[in-house]
């Protein structure tokens, strides 16, 4: 199982928020947001909670487990 996320979808659903704007809001670099969206980097609980707070959703609505290699 691996962790997948809806971050990119959420960004676009909420008025096409740019990666940089989201990065500024949760105080990380743009590359970190880019890597999370591509599934290359799994964020900490702290950052996941900050992202959930920013979008006003539960963490599980952004991150979820996915079957597969």
């Amino acid at each position, binding site marked *: 199982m691996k962790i997948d996320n809806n971050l990119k979808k959420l960004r676009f659903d909420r008025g096409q928020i740019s990666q940089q*704007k989201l*990065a500024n809001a949760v105080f*990380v*670099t743009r590359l970190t947001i880019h890597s999370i969206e591509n599934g290359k980097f799994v964020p900490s609980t702290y950052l996941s909670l900050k992202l959930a707070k920013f979008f006003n959703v539960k963490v599980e609505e952004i991150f979820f487990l996915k079957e597969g290699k």
Partner: protein
Amino acid sequence: MKRIEKIISSIQTILGFLSLLGLSFSFYFLESIRPKMIRFETITAVEESRINIFGITLILLIAFSLVSLYKIVQYLKKVKKISFYDLILLSLAILVFLFVFGDLALISDIGKQHKHGLAQPEWFVLYPVLGFQFLSSAILTYAGLFRLRKKVKNEPVARDINIYILVQYVGAVCGFLGLSFTILNFGFPRPLWMIKTHITATSIFLLIPYLLVVLFWFIVKIKEKPKQWYDEKQIQEMGRSSLFTLLSSVIVVSFLFVLNFNSLEQLLSVLWFPFYIFLTLFLFCGANLWFSFKD
């Protein structure tokens, strides 16, 4: 552009043109005394006094390369993505700075050899180095006039990534140059006293650009609020890079140790430290860059 930035841009342009002028004069002057020096003829007092202009040119080149480095770093801080051309500019500014110390060493060797009636093969190294500095200074002056002054309109950045990437690039370049220099000393051994004299000074000069960029990064971080040195992806990357550096350096240094087991008191006793410093710097910064762009 803030007023201070405009002033720095003008200073860079002026220093660029003065350096080009100084280098042109130096070519002319050196070429006029070279035949006399090769034939071991006495240099007149007037000719000797002209060497001061070459000295002033080297000081101008140091100032020009440092101001250019500052301008490039300021520019790269604002751009969305660091391009290959930007990296070339950065490397040129570092090399122009470092080669000034090469010029000094070469001209000093030429002077000593002329005094003692020895051949001066250094002339054939000095000219290409000066040529490279001339070309690089011209490119940097042009870039200062037409590229580095451009206003870059980007979204505000709360947490900077470019300076972090830049530190890794400069570290990788300085590490590579230092490593190459140390390996050259292994490959073409010279008298031990000569290596001892050159390696310390060269190592310090080679580390200066890296230390300057780290200092700049440090100042940026101090100003950043809320204060946090690295974001979590960078911490992960540095952890992986540290492990990679540790394993690779242990393997390489062990190999070097075994190769030189019977002559540890000689060459290796002088070169092991700069070799280790530049090897770890190159591996660590290179790995950080690799992990930054891979993920």
